[in-house]
């Protein structure tokens, strides 16, 4: 169990901001930390790791990590930290990178097998792909069997296929080790697949905290199929109108009646929604 109640003044791009969080995180939880850049997510991870000076208290399994301005040093906090850039020791083989943290050959072998890195254990980081490097970083972070695994957008530099593969591996590792994990992520599908809880930060405050399904499903009334987009064009055809809306990288067409079209302006941010019973689903 992590009990954290902290306050810190940050000097961000938009001026001075107060980061405040009062959270209880259960042992074994997989928490996604989400929110716009500059909202305090990475700072919160760094606070847990002991890399930032902060006011407040942090207690992990009844051990005080921060109390009355006394802070447990970084190396004594049992933390595994994985960053977006891999931060591997370039002069060590994959296996040595793991053993450097803790000389436990059996665990290293087990982790390398779980992540299909076994055959690469004698290679050096510069001969690995991005996905392989990040798997080494994750394995290395787990070598100490940390109490908390902190992941700062670990997969955001990877292509979608590799991302999905590593998500599965993170899931298997979490199932096997039950390490309490806090991951910064912006990707709703990643959050839904991995996390059992999402905490959303905005300007240093927690604005949402709940299950990924409850927080991420953008529903309005009973509409379950909902997207935000921008109205690009609207044309009258016969007695109806056809609107063209950009959603992410895609364009979609929507038929609207004249009364629905009446107040729409080109460039408007719009919400497209329909009931869950209507969309058809086909395999690509």
């Amino acid at each position: 169990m992590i009990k954290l109640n902290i306050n810190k003044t940050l000097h961000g791009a938009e001026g001075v901001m107060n980061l405040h969080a009062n959270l209880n995180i259960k042992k074994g939880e997989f928490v996604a930390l989400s929110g716009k850049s500059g909202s305090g997510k990475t700072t919160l991870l760094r606070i847990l790791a002991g890399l930032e000076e902060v006011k407040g208290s942090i207690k992990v399994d009844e051990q005080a990590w921060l109390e009355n301005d006394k802070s447990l040093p970084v190396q004594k906090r049992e933390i595994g930290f994985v960053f977006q850039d891999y931060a591997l020791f370039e002069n060590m083989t994959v296996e040595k990178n793991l053993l450097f943290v803790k000389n436990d050959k059996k665990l290293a072998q087990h982790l390398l097998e779980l992540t299909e890195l076994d055959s690469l254990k004698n290679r050096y980081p510069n001969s690995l792909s991005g996905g392989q490097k990040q798997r080494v970083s994750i394995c290395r972070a787990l070598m100490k069997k940390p109490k908390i695994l902190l992941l700062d957008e670990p997969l955001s530099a990877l292509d979608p296929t590799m991302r999905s593969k590593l998500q599965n591996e993170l899931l298997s590792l979490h199932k096997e080790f039950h390490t309490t994990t806090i991951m910064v992520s912006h990707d709703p599908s990643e959050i839904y697949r991995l996390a059992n809880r999402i905490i959303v930060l905005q300007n240093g405050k927690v604005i949402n905290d709940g299950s990924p399904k409850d927080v991420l499903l953008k529903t309005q009334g009973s509409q379950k199929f909902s997207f935000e987009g921008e109205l690009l064009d609207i044309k009258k055809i016969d007695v109806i109108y056809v609107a063209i809306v950009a959603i992410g990288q895609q364009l979609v067409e929507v038929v609207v009646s004249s009364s629905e079209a009446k107040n729409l302006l080109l460039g408007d941010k719009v919400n497209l929604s329909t009931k869950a019973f209507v969309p058809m689903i086909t395999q690509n």
Partner: protein
Amino acid sequence: MNNIIAYVQNIQSLQNLNIVNFTCKGTPLKMMSLDLNNNIQKDTKVMLTCKPMAIALAKNLQGEVSYANRLHANILFIESGELLSALKLQFEEFILESIITTDSCKRMHLQTGDKVTALIKSSDLSIKKVLV
């Protein structure tokens, strides 16, 4: 447009599938839905909506139809296009819009003032907002 104020009568649930029964001035209405917000309970006042394309029309309706929502309405206005027609209907104090093919409109000899039944499948009806 196509906003109907109704009250929740009861909710039938099976896991996260729900059928919500409403009443609007004595007309029973039914909506199929997945998970419902917690604030939707018996006697909750809601605004229901559906797309104009999802309203079918019948005249002199006889026999049984599977449409769970059958609203007795009067035609207020017909805008007839080459292929499609948009009809404004009066149902209680609400104005509904139905868009049907002009062929159907002609075949049924629909005219302003006609009494029609507006038919909406329960899967096409949705809650636009919860009113307090």
